């Protein structure tokens, strides 16, 4: 029976470890998780880790050092399926804000000076799909319990999730919330992947976008809408960029052009 279970590895690159922690925090289901899968490697949870061939690797965190690039490539080579979990792995995280490599270099020098890194060489923060092929994305900052458990169980049973995602607005309307955007508040719900349960709007706060940008979100229209409602363009841009990592780079470049 033991060897019919799928071999799973859970890895952390650069991030707050919140996604790995969330998996551990599924207290009620933890026994079931460990029973249903053969967890080979999970540094946060155990010490007897085996780094061999895997059926599924769940990778949290963005890539910020050369050592992590090697680690990630090794994980890819050993795994049939790689899943990016959490905002840092899916889009690069809030640390992937400096898109222009020149600007990033300058910032780096300003913060760290001219020191020589001996352990490993730092690189500009990027999502894991900048270096390897990713089979599935599970967004969130951190990922949500309900969404994780459905995803995990489905993938274990060979029943992978759908490709395209809904915006936060869908659950927001399920919860019968009053629309903040309609009232003139900067809400990023239409541009953000659903999955959190519209938790901010349930508490009358606008969505800040922490589930990451919806691939096909209509940023141009919402940008003009917010501009028309009187928001400062730099403020809109910052809000949109905050949780988008490297994923809306071309949109932001277009906006720069517009300014000139």
């Amino acid at each position, binding site marked *: 029976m033991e060897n019919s279970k799928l071999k799973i590895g859970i890895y952390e690159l650069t991030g707050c470890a919140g996604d790995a922690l969330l998996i551990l925090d599924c207290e009620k289901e933890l*026994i079931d998780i460990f029973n249903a899968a053969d967890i080979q490697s999970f540094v946060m949870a155990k010490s007897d880790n085996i780094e061999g061939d895997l059926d599924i690797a769940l990778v949290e965190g963005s890539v910020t050092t050369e050592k992590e690039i090697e680690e990630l490539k090794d994980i890819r080579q050993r795994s049939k399926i790689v899943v990016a979990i959490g905002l840092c792995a899916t889009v690069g995280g809030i640390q992937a804000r400096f898109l222009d490599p020149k600007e990033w270099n300058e910032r780096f020098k300003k913060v760290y000076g001219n020191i020589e890194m001996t352990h490993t060489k730092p690189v500009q923060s990027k999502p894991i799909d900048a270096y390897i092929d990713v089979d599935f994305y599970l967004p969130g900052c951190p990922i949500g319990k309900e969404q994780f458990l459905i995803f995990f169980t489905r993938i274990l049973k060979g029943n992978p999730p759908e490709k395209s995602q809904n*915006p936060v607005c869908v659950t927001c309307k*399920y919860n*019968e919330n009053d629309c903040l955007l309609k009232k003139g508040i900067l809400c990023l719900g239409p541009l953000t992947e659903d999955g959190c349960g519209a938790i901010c709007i349930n508490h009358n706060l606008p969505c800040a976008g922490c589930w990451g940008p919806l691939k096909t979100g209509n940023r141009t229209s919402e940008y*003009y*809408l917010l501009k028309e409602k009187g928001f400062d363009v730099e403020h809109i841009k910052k809000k949109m960029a905050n949780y988008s990592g490297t994923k809306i780079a071309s949109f932001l470049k277009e906006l720069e052009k517009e300014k000139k």
Partner: protein
Amino acid sequence: MRIVKLKKENLFPFLEVISKEADLWAPVKKYEDKHVFKAVEDFSEIDLDYQRTIIPPRRILLPPKTNMFEATQNTYKEDFSNVSKKIIFGIHACDVNALVIMDRFYNFAYDDPYYTRARENTLILGYSCWPDEHCLCKSTNTHIVTEGYDLFFSKLDTHYLVWIGSSQGDDLIRKQPSLFNEDISDKDIQTYLNWQKEREDAFQAEIDFIDMPDLIELKYNDPLWEELGKACLACGSCTNVCPTCNCYNVYDKPILGKNASKIVRCWDACTLENYSEVAGGENFRENRADRLKLWYTHKLQAYISKYGKPACVGCGRCIVSCPVDINVLTVGKTLSGEKVDAFWKRFNLQVKKEVRK
């Protein structure tokens, strides 16, 4: 059909009597100016002075997310836990008419047991209303009710006139007939007629639905659809708030540690991208313009051609919900050649200007 009279102070005692054997759902205030239907135990929460709830009462019959059944490899167990005796009190005419449309949708070729069982156990107690600037129901002729209700309350100064629309409605009255009386005076009738006349004149929003099927046909390739598609945020709100939208998705929620799955049904919206995604990841309506065209064809053409009336009951919810002002009023007016002031229009002008620059 019979009409009886109920003193205002007898309303809550009546609700008290009828809610003994059923959950009573009624409008309550959720935000300063917005209401929702809620199962109420404390009647002081009920606020009948409301315009439209954020989500229409269809959510009471089919909630946004429900469990349909639990399945193993060779068994399945249906879950009808949403089916219970309910009374929805305070529904406006547009929403009563929308439920009549829903009854038809979910009973087309096959009966949808999740809807019909919930519906069979639900009584509809309508309530009169006064239009605001977004109410379009006079144009759709759904500002009055002729079917679909068990009781309908029209508010006059000191009492209600109560229309009895079904034998179940009659049974409710018979639970405590002493609360009602039958002697409707000439003065009462005149007050009602005056009220009705004033209400007819109070409607501000208007479109001509008669022309809509032809206009949709004639303007099927009009640049309008691309303009709408450019501005649409694909948030799905117009669809989720519409009382006559009925699409849903079904997905598996496998149970960890068991060889079983819950089969979940949730509302879907044709204005969302993943609505038309099929197995293999293909998508037949990736373009927002195509999706909006589908929505408006459904509301303004297909249903009219089949049933002689639009699949819009003029509730105004799409008008107060769409962040970019794409709604049945701005689209309908544009189709009939009228000028409208809407964000989607201004946005398209702006984008064109910038391209020219």
